[in-house]
C-alpha cells in the first residue's frame, strides 16, 4: 500500500492506509459484487446492502447491511425508490460505519428499481460526507422496462451526481453488443457484470499500485474534473501477438465509451498495465493508436506499470469525462433531430412529453411522481427560464436536500400548468442527457464497419453535417 499523505486535492480520511470498499446496493448491485468476488479482488473488501433479506443472505460478500429493517421487514422495496430511500435512512448509522475511514468507495447499483435508486444516493452522500472518493457504477434499465423505471433511474442518477466524484453508466440496452446473439441470457448478464467488475478492479489498481509512471488519485480527479458530468470508461485486455492492437481496440469498443465521444474529451487518463514482457514499443503503439481518436489539445494523464500477475496480458484503462458544455451541445443537437425520428431506446424517452401528444402529458406526469417532487422545488419558472435556470438552481437545492439525509425533503406544490411544462422540459433535458450518441445513425452504410477517425473526427459522418456544427 502506498501513502497518500501528499495528495493535495483530497484529504484522505485514513491517513496512511489507502483502503477501498466496494458496495453493492440492491439486486443488480449484489450481482456485480458477486462477480467481483468471483474474479478475486484483494485490494478491496466488499459489502452488500439490500432491503430484501433473502437476496442479502445469498450474497457472497463478507459484510452485509440490511436496509429498512423496521420499514420493509426484510422484504424488498417493491420498485419504489421512496421506500428504498427511507430504508437507507433507517440504516444510516450502519452505512456511516461502513464508509468510515475508507479512501475510496465504489458503489455498484442497478438504477430503476426501488432499493438501488432510492438507497444509492443516500449512501453516496454519506460516503462523501465521510470524505471518501466516490465512484458509482450504475446500470440503467432496459428500455422495455418502461418509461417509469427509466425516469426513476434518471432521478436517482441526478441525485448521485451531486455527491459522487465519478459516475459511470452502463445501459442494459447495450448488453446485446457484448455477446453473440445465440448465447444465453445468463451469459449476457454475466458479461455486463464482468465489465463492471473489470472496471472496479482497473480503477482500484490504478490508484493503489505503484507504477513506472505513476498515476494517483490526483490525476484521476483531474481527469474527472467535471464531476457533475458523465464519466466515460474503457478497459481492454488482450494477449498474444497483436496484444497491443487488440487491447486498445477492446478498450475503445467498450460499451462505457463511445469513440465519437472520446473526441470531445479534454482530459483523458490512460493507464497501461502489462506483465514483464511489456515493451516500450507496445506502449508507443498503443498511445499512437489512441492519439488518433483524441483531440489535438487533449490533456493526457499517462501512467504505466508492470504487474507480474498480468502474465502475458496487456491491459489498458481509459478514463475521461465529458464536460457539461459538450453534453449540452450534444443534447441540443439531439433536440433538433428528435423531430426526425427518435431512434432506439434512450431516444424514445427523449421525446418530450409535451410534444404535441396532449394525451401523453397527463399519464407521463402521473407515472413519475418521485422525479416531480424533486424538481418542483423551483416552482415559478417559465419555459424559457427552465432550460437555463434549471441547472444552477436545482442542483444546490438537491445538494442541500441530500446533505441532510435524515430529513425528508418533499416539497408539496400544486402543479400549475406552467410548472407542468417546466417539468416536461426538465424531463426532456434529463432524458436526453442519457443519450450521448453523436448523431445516432449518421454514419449510414458505414454504421457497422470500422470507423475512420482522423484527428478525432469521425469521417464516416457526412462532412456536411459536421461542418454545420
Amino acid at each position, binding site marked *: 500500500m502506498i501513502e497518500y499523505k501528499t495528495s493535495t486535492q483530497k484529504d484522505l480520511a485514513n491517513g496512511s492506509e489507502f483502503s477501498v470498499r466496494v458496495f453493492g446496493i440492491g439486486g443488480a448491485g449484489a450481482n456485480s459484487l458477486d462477480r467481483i468476488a468471483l474474479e478475486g479482488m484483494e485490494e478491496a473488501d466488499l459489502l452488500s446492502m439490500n432491503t430484501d433479506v433473502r437476496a442479502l443472505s445469498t450474497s457472497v460478500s463478507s459484510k452485509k447491511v440490511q436496509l429498512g429493517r423496521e420499514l420493509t421487514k426484510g422484504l424488498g422495496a417493491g420498485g419504489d425508490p421512496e421506500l428504498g430511500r427511507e430504508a437507507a435512512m433507517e440504516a444510516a448509522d450502519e452505512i456511516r460505519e461502513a464508509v468510515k475511514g475508507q479512501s475510496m468507495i465504489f458503489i455498484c447499483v442497478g438504477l430503476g428499481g426501488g432499493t438501488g435508486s432510492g438507497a444509492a444516493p443516500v449512501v453516496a452522500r454519506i460516503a462523501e460526507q465521510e470524505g471518501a472518493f466516490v465512484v458509482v457504477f450504475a446500470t440503467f434499465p432496459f428500455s422495455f422496462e418502461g418509461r417509469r423505471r427509466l425516469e426513476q433511474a434518471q432521478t436517482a442518477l441526478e441525485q448521485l451526481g451531486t455527491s459522487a466524484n465519478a459516475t459511470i453508466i452502463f445501459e442494459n440496452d447495450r448488453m446485446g453488443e457484448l455477446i453473440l446473439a445465440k448465447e444465453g441470457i445468463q451469459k449476457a448478464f454475466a458479461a455486463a457484470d464482468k465489465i463492471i467488475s473489470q472496471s472496479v478492479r482497473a480503477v482500484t489498481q490504478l490508484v493503489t499500485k505503484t507504477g513506472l509512471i505513476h498515476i494517483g488519485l490526483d490525476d484521476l480527479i483531474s481527469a474527472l474534473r467535471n464531476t457533475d458530468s458523465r464519466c466515460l470508461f474503457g478497459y481492454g485486455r488482450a494477449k498474444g*501477438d497483436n496484444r497491443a492492437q487488440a487491447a486498445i481496440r477492446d478498450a475503445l469498443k467498450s460499451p462505457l465509451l463511445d469513440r465519437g465521444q472520446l473526441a470531445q474529451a479534454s482530459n483523458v487518463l490512460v493507464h497501461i498495465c502489462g506483465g514483464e514482457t511489456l515493451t516500450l514499443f507496445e506502449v508507443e503503439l498503443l498511445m499512437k493508436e489512441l492519439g488518433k481518436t483524441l483531440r489535438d489539445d487533449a490533456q493526457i494523464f499517462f501512467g504505466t506499470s508492470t504487474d507480474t500477475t498480468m502474465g502475458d496480458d496487456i491491459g489498458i484503462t481509459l478514463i475521461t469525462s465529458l464536460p457539461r458544455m459538450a453534453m449540452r451541445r450534444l443534447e441540443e443537437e439531439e433536440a433538433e433531430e428528435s423531430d426526425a425520428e427518435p431512434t432506439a431506446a434512450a431516444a424514445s424517452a427523449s421525446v418530450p412529453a409535451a410534444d404535441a401528444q396532449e394525451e401523453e402529458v397527463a399519464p407521463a406526469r402521473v407515472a413519475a411522481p418521485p422525479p416531480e417532487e424533486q424538481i418542483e422545488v423551483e416552482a415559478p419558472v417559465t419555459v424559457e427560464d427552465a432550460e437555463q435556470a434549471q441547472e444552477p438552481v436545482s442542483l444546490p437545492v438537491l445538494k442541500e436536500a441530500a446533505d441532510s439525509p435524515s430529513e425528508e425533503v418533499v416539497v408539496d406544490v400544486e402543479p400549475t400548468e406552467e410548472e407542468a411544462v417546466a417539468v416536461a422540459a426538465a424531463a426532456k433535458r434529463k432524458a436526453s442527457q442519457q443519450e450521448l450518441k453523436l448523431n445516432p445513425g449518421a454514419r449510414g*452504410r458505414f454504421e457497422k464497419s470500422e470507423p475512420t477517425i482522423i484527428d478525432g473526427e469521425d469521417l464516416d459522418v457526412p462532412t456536411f453535417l459536421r461542418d454545420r456544427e
Partner: protein
Amino acid sequence: MSRSNIYVGLEIGTSKICVVVGEVKGDGAIKILGVGQAPSRGVRKGEIVDFGTAQTCLHDALVRAEDRSDVMVRNVFLSITGAHIESVNNRGCIRIPDDQNEITEEDLEEVKEIARDVSIPQQNAFLHSIIQHYYVDGQEKVLDPVGMLGRKLEADYHIIHGIRTRIQNTIRCVREIPLEVEDVVVSAIASAQVVLNQEAKKRGAVVIDVGGGTADYVLYNDGAVTASGCIGVGGDHITNDLSIVLKIPLAKAEKLKIEEGNAMIGEAEPGETIDLSDDTRFVGKPIERALLNEIINVRAREILELVKNKLDDAGNLDQVGAGIFLTGGCSLLNGFDRLAEEVYGMPVHRANSTPISGLTATFENPQYATPIGLIRYAQVLETERPSGPVLGRIGRKFTEFFGVSRAIF
C-alpha cells in the same frame, strides 16, 4: 527479353472488381487483351469484409476477363489498399572498410538491409521498400554507386507496410478462387506506374487515386517516391452523405452523384431543382441542386485536404512541378479536378493511362489505372529480375506472406 508475356492485374475495389489481361510485347509495349469487371460487394473501404460475396463477384469478373481475352488466367498481380497501409522514409548508412575502395553490389545489399530495418508494428509486414537515392560520402543523389570510390554509402528508402493479417486475408480470398497471387502491390504505386511518365516523376508529381472506399496517394519527387499512403474515405462516402442528408436511398444517391453532382459550388442557379427518376421511373421529391453540390463539395474538399495534410507532413509538396494527377472512379465526378486545383493551387490533370495499345476505351478511363498499372509493375519486375539487385527498385521479398518460396518462372 524478346519473348512476350501475359500478365493479369486484379483490383478488388470497394465499388468494382476489375481484372485486366495484358500482354507485354518483346519491345516493351503493353497490349490490353481483355478486361473483366463486376460490381463489388462485400468490400468496405478497400478491404474485404465478406469473403463469400466478394469471391462470387471476383469470379464473375474473372470469367468475363477470360472470355474477352481468350486467356486462361492462373496468376494475378493483386493490388491492395486500406487505411492500415502506412509508409515511412528511412536512411541506411554503412562505412566501406578501409581495405576496400570501390563500392560493390554486396555493399549495396547491406545498406538496403539496414535502411529497411525500421521498426514497424509487430503485426505489420513490409509491402514495398523503394529506393529513393544513394549518397556516397555525402554526395547527393547518386544513381548507381557500384564501382564508385567512397568511404561512406547511404541509401534513402521509402518503406510501405501494412497489417499482415489483412493482407493475408485478401490474398487468401483470391487464392480460394483459385488463382495464384504473383505479387501484391499497393494500389497507389500501381496507378502511378501508368499515370506518370518518367518526366513527370522527375519534375515531381502527386497521384491521387480516389476510389470508392479509399483515397490513395503517392508523391514523387526528383524521380523517387517520397510519400505514399491511404485514407479510408472515398466516393462511397459522398454517396452515403447524399443518402443521409437528402434522406434518399443509397442507389438513388449514387445515381444522383454520377449524373447530376458537381464538386464545385456556385455553378447552380439559386432554387434550381432536380427531378431524378429511379429505376421504376418514379420521380421522388425534387432535390435542390445547390444543396446537392454543397454536400459533395464539402466532402470532396475534405478528402483532398486530408491528402494534402498528409503530403504536407511528408514535407516537400512545394517541390512538385508536374502537378496533381487525379485518377480512380471518383475523379470522374464533375468539378473534382477544378476543386483539386483550388485546394492544391497547382495544375491538376485528370489522368489517363499513358498510351497502351488494345482496347482504347479501357486505358482512357481512370477507373482502370490501378489494374493496368499492375501490368506495368509486372513488366518492370520482369525487366529487373535478370539484372539483379542493382536496379531492384521495387523488388522485395514476397515470401514473407506465405512462408514458402515462390518458383521463379
